[in-house]
């Protein structure tokens, strides 16, 4: 079972990398970009009997720092390999 965890900085938290990429996109001439936020995506290959509560615990205990980050857990498609 492939599960994807998406981790993003909380909305109030300044994202310096996102801001720099935003400026770079503007520098390339792309108009209409209102904001850029950079996060990370973690793919877990889990045994079928791993409980959703355990995946959430993995996020809270290690994968995300909930002081500054939110996380979202979703089923991922099998990778192309």
């Amino acid at each position, binding site marked *: 079972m492939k599960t994807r965890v998406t981790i993003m900085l909380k909305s109030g*938290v*300044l994202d*310096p990398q996102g801001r*720099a990429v935003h400026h770079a996109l503007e520098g390339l001439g792309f108009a209409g970009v209102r904001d850029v936020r950079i996060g990370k995506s973690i793919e877990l290959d889990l045994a079928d009997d791993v409980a959703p509560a355990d995946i959430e615990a993995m996020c809270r205990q*290690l*994968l995300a720092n909930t*002081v500054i980050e939110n996380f979202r857990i979703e089923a991922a498609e099998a990778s192309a390999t």
Partner: protein
Amino acid sequence: MKAVVIVFPGSNCDRDLAVALREVNGQPPAMIWHGDSDLPKELDLIAVPGGFSYGDYLRSGAMAARSPVMRAVAAAAERGVFVLGVCNGFQVLTEAALLPGALMRNREIRFVCRDVPLTVASTRTAFTARYDAGEAITIPVAHHDGNYTADEETLDRLEGEDRVVLRYRAETNGSARAIAGIVNDRGNVMGLMPHPERRVELAHGGVDGRRLFEGLVEAFG
């Protein structure tokens, strides 16, 4: 004072901390590898050094905070043993929830490596007992993730409880309320981004970091 320095794979200020402690304390600290789950029973100070523990994988300090030795550090802190986290050590202590908040990427994104002017904001604990309140000192920083962040309520509490120990005197990395160092509620765990171990003898260009170690030695004998 009985002191140890924790060493993670990727630590690179562990020897500097050990030299500073030996200089000031008269005896070298024990070096404790990250995989060890036991600390000496008789212990006054645990120093968590700067560097790039575990290559900064996932987040700075995140992996180190979950290593076996950190469970022992947390238990020791709970017993009242003093814990000092410098730079990456500060990041490790926040990731381990021994200190509140988080250290994010510097606001201007650049790695900052230079002497910074600081104010000693609190002299309440042994960490800064040898400084004067409000004293201006200069200690170098060298970090990419030193932007101290916490919610407003936490920041208010830190200030209200006199737990902000060091502040930047000039904009350095975007830290909330110019926070460069804090202590926990009991005052026995301190984290700071500047490197006091790099200012303990005149050959370093100044000795403004030395009194931090002297204050601890004085407290523990």
